[in-house]
């Protein structure tokens, strides 16, 4: 009487089956996965070489309103508005509304689908609610196809879906800015104010030693603005002054340049100062850093004055570390221009005006006080600080944020 | 040792057992009266089909009478449930059958241990006890064998050991030597009697063995469904 054979047989069969199952299920297990990088939309922007695009190599004549419109033969272009606004009773807001155009290829291939595109538009929209201490930022993208995004000079219009800047009537000015997210909305009517100021050498802004490492750059430095800001469900009637920067290029930054600090300051005496300091890898200021002082409208000479790196002494008085990106940004400056008799202290109105978008940077409303040739003055403006944070979002983090809706 | 002084271990009062067989009813036992006491070694004689096995089944509670009362240790089996009768049997009765006595799927030792463990003895205790009993019946060395490896006589010796293992007060044996040669049969009966008397139990043995008749305290015989006590046998035994 022995069940041993049965028990052994059963055990062998079971073991055999188990092994077969292990083999079968193992076999169907695909090869190991390797953790990769991240698909970011920014990869799509600014990639590829410069061949086939026009380059900014020498000064050119600017014509308006044509040059308010797009220059698709260059790879990159932007329409940049910043401004400080105030309600009747003094509640202060800052805003930034930027539309970038970025070409993916110098020429569009012939194709059936209307979705084929070689231009991509990127929009950044922020509102700094100074009183509430809140900073609202959002980003969106779209290809320039199916009228989803685009730009035209006449009539003047730049748009990215329902974010747009467009002439109100037949003539270019006034221009209405319109942008909206779930949290905030902005609607502004911009008058031109002063005429356009050509930056650099008659509008050619050299950014590096290499020929062609330059952009065409003009600004409208003090544009009377009025309209509404909606924050937290409440709409405020506001007035203030905006600054428009227009720049197009194919390649701008050189090898060793890691970022820039850019100031656009509107002084209470009616003059404006623009200065950008290109930063090198070692932290020093690049020699191609440059700026322009625009005298007030009533001054005897209305000609803008170029300001070079040597003319300016810029001292960082304080820093701010972003809890989000870990980047350490300068957050207060002393800015002296001896040849203009300027001595200013520039202070951010909010410490955290960092944009958590696909390329992280700081751009915010600032206030200033100081003296010009001994006379006290105040002012306001915007500062942009790039290259301080890791520009790539961390792998686990949010990728290129959606349009914020 | 006068048996009538103590209350009877088994008492049958006017027991009748009838089986339906087709349309007719056959009375196997009719009006049987019987008392058995501890210490008695009783032989039951009778021809085949005279109702001997039925009597054993009634006493052990396997079967119930058509009429009358069967009492074991004063308890009326008729008033007990099937389960209670089974448990009473488990505790109070040892059984030895004519053949196919042992459980083929258990070893010799396990066969002997079965009644012990059924009555709640631990494995160690019942093992030791079983081995001691096997020693007594001279089969110590066959403890690990299966029954089909044993001769008929050996099997019956194991059966005796098993029937007595838990020291039941009542031992029922149905022709325990029926399948054995004379010498072997006598050996088994010696064992049976010795162990019964030693444990002050009561044994009711169905047999044809004349030698046993002469050793019995009482000799009963079934004749046509009636139980008759042979006075001479008792006298002889005295």
């Amino acid at each position, binding site marked *: 009487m022995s*069940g041993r*054979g*049965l028990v052994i*047989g059963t055990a062998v069969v*079971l073991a055999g*089956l188990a092994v*077969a*199952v292990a083999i079968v*299920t193992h076999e*169907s297990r*695909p*090869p190991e*996965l390797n953790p990769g*990088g*991240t*698909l*970011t*939309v920014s*990869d*799509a922007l600014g*990639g590829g070489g410069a061949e086939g695009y026009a380059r900014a190599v020498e000064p050119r004549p600017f014509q308006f309103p044509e040059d308010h419109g797009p220059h698709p033969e260059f790879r990159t272009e932007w329409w940049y508005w910043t401004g400080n606004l105030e309600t009747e009773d003094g509640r202060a807001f800052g805003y930034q509304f930027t539309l970038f155009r970025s070409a993916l*290829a110098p020429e*569009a*291939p012939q*194709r*059936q*689908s*209307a*979705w084929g*595109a070689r231009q*991509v538009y990127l929009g950044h929209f922020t509102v700094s609610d100074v009183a509430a201490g809140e900073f609202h930022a959002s980003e*969106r*993208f779209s*290809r320039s196809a199916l*009228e*989803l995004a685009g730009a035209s000079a006449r009539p003047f219009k730049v748009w990215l*879906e329902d974010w747009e800047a467009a002439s109100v009537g037949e003539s270019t000015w006034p221009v209405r800015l319109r942008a909206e997210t779930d949290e905030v909305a902005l609607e502004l009517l911009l008058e031109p104010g002063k005429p356009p100021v050509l930056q650099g050498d008659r509008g050619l802004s050299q950014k590096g030693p290499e020929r062609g490492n330059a952009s065409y750059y003009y600004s409208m430095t003090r544009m009377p603005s009025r309209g509404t800001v909606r924050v937290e469900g409440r709409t405020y009637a506001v007035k203030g002054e905006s600054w428009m920067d227009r720049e197009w290029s194919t390649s701008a930054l050189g090898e060793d340049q890691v970022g820039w600090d850019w100031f656009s300051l509107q002084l209470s005496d009616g003059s404006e100062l623009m200065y950008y300091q290109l930063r090198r890898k070692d932290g020093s200021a690049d020699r191609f850093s440059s700026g322009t002082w625009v005298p007030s409208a009533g001054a005897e000479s209305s000609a803008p004055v170029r300001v070079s790196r040597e003319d300016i002494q810029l001292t960082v008085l304080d820093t701010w570390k972003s809890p989000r990106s870990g980047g350490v940004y300068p957050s207060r400056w002393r800015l002296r221009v001896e040849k203009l008799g300027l001595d200013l202290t520039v202070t951010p109105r909010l410490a955290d005006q960092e944009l958590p978008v696909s390329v992280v940077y700081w751009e915010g409303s600032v206030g200033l006080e100081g003296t010009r040739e001994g006379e006290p003055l105040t002012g306001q403006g915007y500062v942009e600080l790039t290259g301080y944070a890791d520009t790539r979002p961390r792998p686990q983090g949010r*990728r290129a944020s959606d*349009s914020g*809706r | 040792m006068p048996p009538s002084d103590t209350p009877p271990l088994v008492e049958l009062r006017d027991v009748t057992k009838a089986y339906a067989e087709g349309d007719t009813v056959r009375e196997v036992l009719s009006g049987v009266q019987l008392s058995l006491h501890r210490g008695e070694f009783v032989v039951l004689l009778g021809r085949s089909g005279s109702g001997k096995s039925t009597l054993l089944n009634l006493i*052990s509670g*396997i079967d119930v009478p058509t009429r009358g009362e069967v009492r074991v240790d004063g308890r009326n089996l008729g008033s007990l449930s099937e*389960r209670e009768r*089974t*448990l009473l*049997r488990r*505790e109070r009765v040892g*059984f030895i*059958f*004519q053949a196919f006595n042992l*459980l083929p*799927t*258990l070893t010799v030792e*396990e066969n002997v*241990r079965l*009644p012990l*463990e*059924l009555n709640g003895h631990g*494995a160690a205790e019942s093992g030791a006890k079983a081995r001691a009993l096997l020693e007594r019946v001279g089969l110590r060395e066959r403890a690990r064998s299966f029954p089909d490896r044993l001769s008929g006589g050996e099997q019956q010796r194991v059966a005796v050991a098993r029937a007595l293992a838990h020291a039941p007060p009542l031992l029922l044996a*149905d022709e325990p030597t029926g399948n054995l040669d004379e010498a072997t049969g006598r050996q088994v009966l010696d064992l049976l009697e010795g162990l019964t008397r030693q444990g002050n139990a009561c044994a009711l043995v169905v047999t044809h063995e004349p030698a046993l008749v002469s050793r019995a305290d009482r000799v009963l015989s079934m004749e046509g469904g009636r139980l008759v006590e042979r006075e001479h046998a008792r006298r002889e035994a005295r």
Partner: protein
Amino acid sequence: MRRLLVRSSLRHLGGHPWLTALSLLGIALGVAVVVSIDLASGSALRAFERSTDAVAGRATHQVVGGSSGLDERVYRDLRLRRDAPVSAPVVEGHVQAAVGDRRTLTVLGVDPFAEAPFRDYAKGEAVGDVGALLTEPGTVLLSARAAQSLGITSGGELPVRVEGVEKRLRVAGLLTPSDEDTARAVEALVLTDVSTAQEVLGQVGRLTRVDLRIRDEAEAQRLQAALPTGTELVRASARAGTVEQMTRAFRTNLTALSLLALVVGMFLIYNTMTFSVVQRRGLLGRLRAVGITRGELFALVLGEAAVLGAVGTVAGLLLGVLLARGLVGLVTQTFNDLYFVVSVRALALEPFTLAKGLVLGLGATLVAALVPAWEAARSAPVTTMRRSTLEDVSRSRAPRLAVLGLVVLAAGTGMLTWPTQALLPAYGGLFSVLLGSALLVPWVTERLSSVAALPLGSTFGLLGRMAARSVRTSLSRTAVALAALMVAVATTVGVGLMVSSFRGTVVSWLDTSLQADVFISPPSLVARRGGATLVPGLEERLRSTPGVAASSTLRVASARVDGVPTDLLAIDFTRTQARPYRFKEGNPETVWRELESSPDALLVSEPFSFHRRVRVGDTVRLTTDRGPHDFRVVGVYFDYGSDVGTMLMPRTTYERWFDDRGVSGVALYAAPGQDVDALVASVRERAGDSQALLVRANRSLRQASLEVFDRTFTITQVLRLLAIGVAFVGVLSALMSLQLERARELAVLRATGLTPGQLWGLVSLQTGLLGLLAGLFSVPLGMALAYVLVHVINQRSFGWTLRLAVSPETLVQAVLLALVASALAGLYPAWKMARANPALALREE
């Protein structure tokens, strides 16, 4: 005490290793069949869900259009709205890889700039040149795994076939998701820009849908109100549900068939346990005499069954996984032929399915062991046992069992004729019929074998009479074995007849519906649906082929009926008189007039009418490009091509309500005297190389259709084979145990002077007689099963009217199966008995 009993039980099982092994095999096979079907169809469904999830992403709603998607301007307008919801455009379709294993790939055309809120391919991926996706036509991203198995590297070329046209795609980058779920989801995915997807799939200007994330019902309603005519806002979850629903009947049927295998397995267990009880009657009686209670014996036998059940079930689970690995391909093929494109590369080992198999296997074993356990508990505690009295009891019980069987049969019939469409009573009835028939077996066997004794006796003499009589005298065992065999064999008969009936119906349906001489269509990925379109302009060229007397065109589109996507056939009848349809409802004389004169009349197929409870005179609401519209049903036609149902309308009606102008197929009628093969050749010539077309003459399309049909039933055939396997094991174990159990009797015969040859003859006669009886019993029961499957279960699952056709081969096959198995079953016991020393056999027990 219990330890000793348990030991005794286990030794008993071990003492009959072959029987125990066979019953283990029976349980294992039964469980394996159920588990494997469950796993295989579950895996196919899961794969589909996963790819649906991957493709649907986190969308809460979708904007969908008519039969040809929606205009891309709908998306643009949506994007430019000031209160625009979060949205993304999607162009989706299927292509077939023209390299490697020619797998089907889902092309997902998206706008990378709108994707972030919806899909996570971006999560942890290494990607090549994304910019190229937008600027270079034909650039795609492919999962690294798919690329590896297709032998393509990043930057390499991926040739694909789309509706018969070969296209070359360039793999710009590889997707290597970091988590397994995403990896599996994107495995069959070709991710590309909307532009490339539109061009590759031939949907320029159209979107398949717009994905949306909508926060609340209010927003949904606002949006719905603002959407243009012909578009509709639907919940994203609706689609996966549709698929689940679409395949439910098919899967339920598979599961029911697999359960039949388990029922056969249960009979095996019942058989084994009954045998082990019957065999041990003496032992059990002695145990009772010694003082074992009934409860203890009952528990003992159930315990034995539980051990067998546990071991067998575990083996069955393992076997089931192996089997599923093989079946998943078949199930996937069937899904692909019938319903939708899905590519399954791996088995989804759902713990729930495995647990279900475990419970089912153990439960079935225990249920099957209940009766034997009860029998065991009933054993009388007797000191001497005579077999004859026991068999007397068995025989006297037979008529009573037969009456009970009739009652169960009546109850089963009642459940089957219950006027409901629910499947549960149908299955209940089916199993009642099986049980009732099994209960009838002892009585019928007794009658039959006493009748058989005469002819057998006159043919084989004493041995013949003995063989016949032994069937009768050991009724307690033979009846059980016979019942098990009958159920097992009848199952195979029933399923076999069902399939052949189905096939017969389809053949005659094809004969009426395929009337044209030449059929032309682009290859389609779902064989039975076929929505691929002809290259524009080709249709007219084909129809005007010389030698064509008449022609019609067919458009297979998908339209939504009450939100459920349904196949809609649009047929151009203007150039032919042929109307190759038969009607279940509606007068064929008037239906066509009504259909062609009214712009809002349509026909529905029988399954459609069944599933949607729509009859002639009712209306169905279709979402058209002109908005939702109610169409009147003027006829219900027979159709065995789709089990979910189709609708049919004239092309003129279709073009009035839908913008789609595609043509999916052309049917040509040859002019009198025109040679069809020559016509096929000239059609091929006229078609040119612009598109790989299937140009088929009537008989070859018929052939191809039947091939598809057969393919969709392969899985059923495999199930039938498995059931046959289980039945075979059943016959073997039942008859073998019967003979082994009679070892003693045979030993006596040997001792009395029977030669080994005579013994072999006797055993063969007995098993042969039993096999024959089982085969014969299984024929009527099998036909009854087929009747139930065809007329009740199939009808209630799919709504099809089928004609039951009894094919003699199936019946002969069944009897042969029983005979062969029984002949084999007799071999081992006869051999063993002939060799054994009779004295030893006599001593045993």
